[in-house]
């Protein structure tokens, strides 16, 4: 059907054809002797209705619908312009419904849908130990080596990598701090990335003792080396070590999980940290192998997996994309469900609006039917109008989403790392929004359908007054209002449950008092410094910080509460059974003021004291959890433990000495607020022994409202101008950060619930207003017969209440089904919590009463005389 040839307009062509027909007819007649004018007239008469011929001929090509659609849209536009109040309300309502959908979908698109920017992204898998967390967790080096050697029939490339902190690049004109990632040679093949200059890391370079190599990211190559291709083969100094630049990565490469400036070889089996579970693993699946098959094959390897110190549940494989989404995935899906509910409410509201207006337009519709408009055409016209409304609502929603997106992406508390910039509106998002608009216009277009189908020409024209078909429309509007109440209730309950979760988390016993405490982090000045050097630095800083006016006390610690993990297998000295070893024992090297500064209660024995120096007997203070685990019902004081020993096995080359337990302190939360505190051992920083960290944390208690941060910075700068401070913030921030995920969910769901509530109350208000308007006559009679204003008030409010109650019953039932999906995000509250349901219902009923009150007041003010004349 090549009718649409370029340069050919079907309308013009048909017209030209008809014109040539007429011309020839006229010419024939003139040749036969007719006067030209007469010939023209007769020819036209003979031809018939030119417009009709044109139209029926064009219809052959099936363009009629297109033209009609244009007509319908123009007609819809005109009707909308005639009732701007209606149009604006409907469009704003829809924008409120569509905007959040677009915004959440944009995030989902960026995080869950858009494929990772690596070659064959669906074949990249994250591999690790399985524990409670769905995402595979890190392994230790022997486990990685084992997986690499034995995973050959599942994976093509098994890559290990691990954060390497920030390294100082010394250059002539100052220095630059580079974020480094240590990777094995399989890393780049697993991601399918090739160096654009030079080469990637080679397997030789991951052997201990080999010359140090470094691969540069495009960004750092341009920033620090001016994009010089001659940089390949050059030596650069990172911290104190000389590295050879071997390659530069392509500009579009970005390691999303942990954006890095440089990549250096990971040396498995080279350091004391090998037994720590801190090697992350990704692997490229063999072609044609599914994740399920990989999982099945891998489970056979678990039995032989070495160094299972932390007793995992097994091995785990997950698509890398899903692993990167991590905790964000369930939250996003819940929020997506919530905005879908919000959209339905908006649809119900607009449908109700359309019905209300249809009531007013019943006469117009009837007249148009009477003079021969097809019901189908009328329906199409109202659908076109609906579509126009939806389209403009979608445009509004899109604008709102675009405006809110930046804030939303920034507010996402999970680590979006390299993907924050990918949270943007792309074609897929546009299609999604357009689809939403079409979907919504169909939903509330059903309202129009009802109206057209129901309009009875005779009844409407005879009765001659709007609202003649009140009862049936009234029923639909009631159903819509009830649906709105029910849907908002489920959102409200969800928000209440998340709010309660947040409240519970904040109420958790932290084991320390974060008020008026500042937390600071300073990286070690060099790689692997000696303990003595760190401790001497720490002592000097502490002495000076404690001299700052406003500082009450200060202490150094390897990792401050809720800021991270640092664990080593530990056991009771001389007791090698499984009950007396614990793989994930958190170890903290602290200075003497630590417990006092954090106000962590010492429950038994003594804290770490200044006298616990390097030369003094080795001591440890343990937390309550560990005391109960190893010495239930007994005092652990005087017992001995060995850090770095597990089931009688020494994990380090130098045997670790036993330490005497001299005190028990209250449990301090580990990394997660909602989990019980992990078993923890505190040792004096002066006796730290094993070196596992690359930075010192500081906790500084100040007088209330004391501004000491500048003075602290000054102290550090005086000690060493090159010393960096990577964190300096109130300790309470750490707690906010720890619950940021729940805060985000609760805040957004609360926001959506509030919008839903507003829409639902508008819905109830609209229904009752119309109701009162339609019953003005009846109310007038009642009042003329002596009804009290209070009775009239009750009449209206009662109807609002009935709607709300019906909605509450249905909504509660729906919420029981829906909130199950929330249970994974809840803490300390059941998805069926009575308080949440009762609270949500109470709020809704209250709002419904408010919404009924205004129309009710209007009813009361009805003047019987006016009302009766109203007919």
């Amino acid at each position, binding site marked *: 059907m090549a*009718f649409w040839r370029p340069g050919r307009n079907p309308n013009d062509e048909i017209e*030209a054809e*008809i014109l*040539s*027909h007429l*011309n020839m007819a006229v010419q024939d007649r003139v040749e036969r002797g007719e006067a030209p004018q007469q010939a023209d007239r007769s020819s036209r008469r003979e031809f*018939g*209705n030119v417009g009709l011929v044109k139209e029926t*001929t064009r219809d052959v*090509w099936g363009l009629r619908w297109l033209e009609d659609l244009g007509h319908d849209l123009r007609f819809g536009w005109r009707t909308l312009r005639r009732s701007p109040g209606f149009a604006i309300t409907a469009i704003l309502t829809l924008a409120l419904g569509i905007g959040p959908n677009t915004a959440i979908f944009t995030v989902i698109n960026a995080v869950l849908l858009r494929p990772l920017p690596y070659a064959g992204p669906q074949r990249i898998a994250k591999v690790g130990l399985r524990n409670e967390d769905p995402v595979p967790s890190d392994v230790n080096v022997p486990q990685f080596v084992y997986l690499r050697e034995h995973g050959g029939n599942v994976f093509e490339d098994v890559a290990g990598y691990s954060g390497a902190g920030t390294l100082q690049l010394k250059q002539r004109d100052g220095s630059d701090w580079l974020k480094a990632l240590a990777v094995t040679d399989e890393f780049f093949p697993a991601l399918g990335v090739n160096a654009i200059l030079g080469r990637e890391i080679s397997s030789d370079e991951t052997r201990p003792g080999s010359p140090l190599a470094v691969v540069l990211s495009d960004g750092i190559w341009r920033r620090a080396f001016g994009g010089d291709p001659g940089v390949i083969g050059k030596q650069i100094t990172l911290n104190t070590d000389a590295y050879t630049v071997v390659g530069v990565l392509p500009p579009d490469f970005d390691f999303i999980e942990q954006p890095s400036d440089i990549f250096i070889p990971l040396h498995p089996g080279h350091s004391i940290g090998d037994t720590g579970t801190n090697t992350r693993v990704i692997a490229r699946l063999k072609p044609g192998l599914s994740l399920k098959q990989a999982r099945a094959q891998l489970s056979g390897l678990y039995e032989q997996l070495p160094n299972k110190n932390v007793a995992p549940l097994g091995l785990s494989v997950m698509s890398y994309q899903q692993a990167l989404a991590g905790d964000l995935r369930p939250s996003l899906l819940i929020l997506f469900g919530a905005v879908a509910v919000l959209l339905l409410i908006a649809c119900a509201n607009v449908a109700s609006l359309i019905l209300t207006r249809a009531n007013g337009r019943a006469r117009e519709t009837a007249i148009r039917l009477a003079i021969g408009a097809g019901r189908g055409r009328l329906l199409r016209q109202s659908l076109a109008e609906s579509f126009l409304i939806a389209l403009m609502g979608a445009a509004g929603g899109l604008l709102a989403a675009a405006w809110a997106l930046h804030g939303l992406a920034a507010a996402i508390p999970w680590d979006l790392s390299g993907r924050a910039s990918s949270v943007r509106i792309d074609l897929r998002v546009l299609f999604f929004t357009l689809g939403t608009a079409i979907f919504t216009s169909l939903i509330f277009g059903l309202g129009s359908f009802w109206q057209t189908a129901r309009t009875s020409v005779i009844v409407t024209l005879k009765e001659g007054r709007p609202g003649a078909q009140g009862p049936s429309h009234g029923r639909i509007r009631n159903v819509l209002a009830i649906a709105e109440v029910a849907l908002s209730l489920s959102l409200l309950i969800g928000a209440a449950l998340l709010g309660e979760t947040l409240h519970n988390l904040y109420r958790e016993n932290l084991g320390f008092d974060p008020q008026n405490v500042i937390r600071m982090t300073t990286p070690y000045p060099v790689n692997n410094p000696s303990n003595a050097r760190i401790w001497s630095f720490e002592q000097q800083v502490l002495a000076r910080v404690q001299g700052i006016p406003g500082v009450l006390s200060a202490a150094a610690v390897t990792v401050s509460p809720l800021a991270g993990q640092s664990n080593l297998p530990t056991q009771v000295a001389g007791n090698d059974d499984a009950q007396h070893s614990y793989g994930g024992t958190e170890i903290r090297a602290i200075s003497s003021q630590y417990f006092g500064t954090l106000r962590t209660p010492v429950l038994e024995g003594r804290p770490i004291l200044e006298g616990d120096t390097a030369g003094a007997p080795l001591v440890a203070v343990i937390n309550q959890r560990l005391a109960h685990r190893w010495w239930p019902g007994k005092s652990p004081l005087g017992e001995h433990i060995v850090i770095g020993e597990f089931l009688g096995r020494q994990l380090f080359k130098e045997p670790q000495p036993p330490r005497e337990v001299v005190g028990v302190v209250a449990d301090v939360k580990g990394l997660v607020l909602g989990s019980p505190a992990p078993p923890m051992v505190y040792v004096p920083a002066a006796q730290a022994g094993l070196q596992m960290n690359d930075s010192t944390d500081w906790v500084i208690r100040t007088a209330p409202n004391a501004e000491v941060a500048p003075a602290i910075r000054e102290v550090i700068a005086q000690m060493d101008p090159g010393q960096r401070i990577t964190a300096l913030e109130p300790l309470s921030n750490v707690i906010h950060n720890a619950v940021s995920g729940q805060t985000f969910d609760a805040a957004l769901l609360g926001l959506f619930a509030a919008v839903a509530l507003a829409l639902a109350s508008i819905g109830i208000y609209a229904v009752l207003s119309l109701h009162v308007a339609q019953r003005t006559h009846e109310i007038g009679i009642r009042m003329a017969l002596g009804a009290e204003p209070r009775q009239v008030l009750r009449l209206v409010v009662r109807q609002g209440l009935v709607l709300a109650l019906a909605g509450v019953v249905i909504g509660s039932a729906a919420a029981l089904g829906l909130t199950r999906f929330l249970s994974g995000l809840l803490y300390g509250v059941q998805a069926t919590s009575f308080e949440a349901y009762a609270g949500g219902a109470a709020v809704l009923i209250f709002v419904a009463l408010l919404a009924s009150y205004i129309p009710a007041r209007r009813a009361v003010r009805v003047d019987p005389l006016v009302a009766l004349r109203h007919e």
Partner: protein
Amino acid sequence: MSTAKDRYQNRIELLQGTLDLLILQTLVWGPRHGYGISQMIRANSAEILQVDTGSLYPALHRLEKQRWIASEWKVSDNNQRAKFYRLTASGRKQLASERSRWAQLSEAIAGILHPGKQETEA
């Protein structure tokens, strides 16, 4: 030349589908424009068959859409630009099948209008 009055008197409504047949048949003698086709049908039927333009042009376009005829703008004998239609190969096939259908139909109708002796006697 016929007046409006006798045109209606002499006019015979074309049976559904026969116009297509007539158009295809007319084009067997060579490409023609719409006006020419209508004139030819009228002339060849001794002025009895009047083709209504409201049927002719939709029919022409329908046939073109079916690719039984193809069109081209050309200049006519009397120096008018006009859209000429010509029969395509598949149009010729279609014409053959429509002709045989027409033959069957007229035979069947003739059978009903002029029944055999037996039936009349019975």
